[in-house]
């Protein structure tokens, strides 16, 4: 089984919810997610952010759905770290 351990996303989002609320909402998607958010650029109505999520098994679809629910738009997946592990019998 292949598990996603880390992803780095480039996202465009409205100013609200703010960076803290946005990262908290993404962290809530998993039980052990660690979210690192950097605001790269701020425009009149939007901001470009970089989100790094690390965890034991990252559910990318759920993260993407949360970003969309919050009004964000996923531009690109810039970095990925995956690992294959033997499934416990």
């Amino acid at each position: 089984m292949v598990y996603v351990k880390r992803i780095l996303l480039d996202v465009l989002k409205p100013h609200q919810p703010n960076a803290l609320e946005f990262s908290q909402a993404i962290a809530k998607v998993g039980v052990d997610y660690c979210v690192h958010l950097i605001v790269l650029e701020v425009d009149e109505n939007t901001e470009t952010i970089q989100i790094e999520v690390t965890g034991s098994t990252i559910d990318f679809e759920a993260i993407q759905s949360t970003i969309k629910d919050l009004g964000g738009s996923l531009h690109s997946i810039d970095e990925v770290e995956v690992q294959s592990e033997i499934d416990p019998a």
Partner: protein
Amino acid sequence: MLGQIKFLLDITRSRDIVRRYFVVNGFDGALTMLGLIIGFIVSESDDLAVIFNVCLGAAIALGMSGLSSAYISESAERKHALDKLEQAMVSDLSDSAHGEASRRVPLLIALVNGLAPLLISFLILLPIWLSISGIVLPLSPLYAAIIVALLLLFLLGVFLGSIAGISWLRSGLQTLLVAMVTAVLIYLFAGH
């Protein structure tokens, strides 16, 4: 539920709008009731049922006016804000929290705008209703209603003072002064 309402108000930055609508229309309700009751006192009407029904009719009309006007104007404002955000994001936000907020926030603001004058009017009319129901009050129900109205106007001022971070007493007395001036004007113009 409350958390979701708070979140929707935050992302649309509408908290201050809700507060403003509450105070402005609550003030409208209190002053209208005060004006009507003083008008009845000046015209020496003593039929409490008639007074109560006239005031209740005015309160309901104020409530409906607040509800519908706020809903129509806020729906247009929220739609405009969403369109602007969608243009900036170059994407459809109708399924996002912003889309949900543009549908629900106008309803919430409309409810506050409509219920504020209605509830405040009900509180002012309470002594009249109690008197009609056969409960004996220590003073005339019309004067008791005026005291309730003045108290509520004072409390609205106190609320505004706490928001502005200024003296609650000064702010409360300011709104009370407006009520006093209104009462004097009614006595001057309707008393003859």
